[in-house]
């Protein structure tokens, strides 16, 4: 619990450090996702070469969705039962989930930026406002990773986790994905009504905060077995 804020920040930091160290030592998972990103975008390139901007935008977000499912799913799969018991003894559930949320957001941000780079190289560059689009990509990848971290925590409790992630996640993520595809058209040169763009961005941020609050409240129930 957050009775001693300094301690819980230390715990979150320690758990984050552990995830980062694990990533650095077992690099195959990191490179695995990287290869997944690169090869899926390469296959897209072979299939449709240089699509028009709306198709480009749609494909970009769908690829982000699949990258997210793959990158985040492993975050709970890699924790063995014994290790979970160890975390249970040394840290609280809330610190654990906050560390996971932060870590997955970081990884997803990295992957999204890499895939944006690859999309530009391979599938052409329809972007008119590059930095605006990049900002939206950052918000979008954070929203995706937050939702899927929580779903991965739920799916980790059940069998056939990978397919469950998709079954549970795709319907829930639709509103955010629709919003993202809509606002990212701003980066492709579409002009919005005054205020409409910032409204949608605030809505996305609000949903992100909601996911974090729900995760912190609900995760303690998932974790005690």
């Amino acid at each position, binding site marked *: 619990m957050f009775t001693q804020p300094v301690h819980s920040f230390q715990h979150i930091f320690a758990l984050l450090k552990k995830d980062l160290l694990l990533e650095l030592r077992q690099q195959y998972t990191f490179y695995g996702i990287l290869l997944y990103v690169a090869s899926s975008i390469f296959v897209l390139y072979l299939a449709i070469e240089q699509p028009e901007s709306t198709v480009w935008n749609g494909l970009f977000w769908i690829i982000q969705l699949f990258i997210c499912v793959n990158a985040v799913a492993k975050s709970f799969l890699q924790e063995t039962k014994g290790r979970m018991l160890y975390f249970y003894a040394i840290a609280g559930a809330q610190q654990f989930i906050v560390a996971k949320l932060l870590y997955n957001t970081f990884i997803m941000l990295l992957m999204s930026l890499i895939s944006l780079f690859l999309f530009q190289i391979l599938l052409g560059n329809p972007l008119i406002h590059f930095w605006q689009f990049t900002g939206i990509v950052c918000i979008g990848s954070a929203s995706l990773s937050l*939702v899927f971290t*929580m*779903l991965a925590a*739920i*799916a980790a*409790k*059940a*069998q*056939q986790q990978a397919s*469950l992630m998709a*079954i*549970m996640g*795709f*319907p*829930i993520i*639709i*509103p*955010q994905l*629709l*919003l993202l595809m*809509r606002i990212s058209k701003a980066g492709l040169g579409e002009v919005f009504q005054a205020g*409409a763009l910032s*409204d*949608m961005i605030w*809505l996305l941020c*609000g*949903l992100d905060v*909601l*996911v974090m609050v*729900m995760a912190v409240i*609900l995760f303690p*129930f*998932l974790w005690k*077995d």
Partner: protein
Amino acid sequence: MKKTWWKVLCIFLLLYTLIGGLLMDVPHKKILNETIRNIYFHVPMWFGMMVLFSCSVFYSVKYLRKPDLLYDIYATSYARTGMLFGILGLVTGAMWANYTWGKAWSNDIKQLGAAMALLVYAAYFVLRNSMIDIDKRARVGAVYNIFAFAMLFPALWIVPRMVESLHPGGAGNPGADPRDMDARMRIVFWLGAVPGFILLGIWLSTIIIRFRKIEDKNLLHA
């Protein structure tokens, strides 16, 4: 039989809705014409669905606070009837859209939202069935139910107001356009149809709950 008054009320309200809704005069609008009567049967399905899903979440929260399998039975039964209402709402909407919009499905944001809600709750049942342990199933199911509800309902209420739509009430209230109904219609709609169908949903759920209580008698009293 205790507390039968609301069941009698439910039958009375639904009879009033059926007779009043199908026989009483309605304003003659362009394109809509007589199809405006669908508002008595289609829109209450969504009210019913939201109420039933809210009941389901209420019992999921109760389950997490005090793990009693009875609450789990309540939560799943309300979710089931909520899905039934959702499917009926989608079907009645599609039938109406077939005559007024020209085709049953036109990827309208409200149709997408409805389909999304059904998929989310279908996933709830798939998730539950993937676990064998009864307590774990109830607990993880409750967590997903609360999370999905918290994600889904803001999206259902906010997003349709931000995107253009064919659906009546395009600007403002996404459910029904108050300008389409006159005073007589409003009486049938708000006093008859909406409470009548909500009560019917709750009645159906209580029947399922009583049935499942008998089925799982051994588990509940163990």
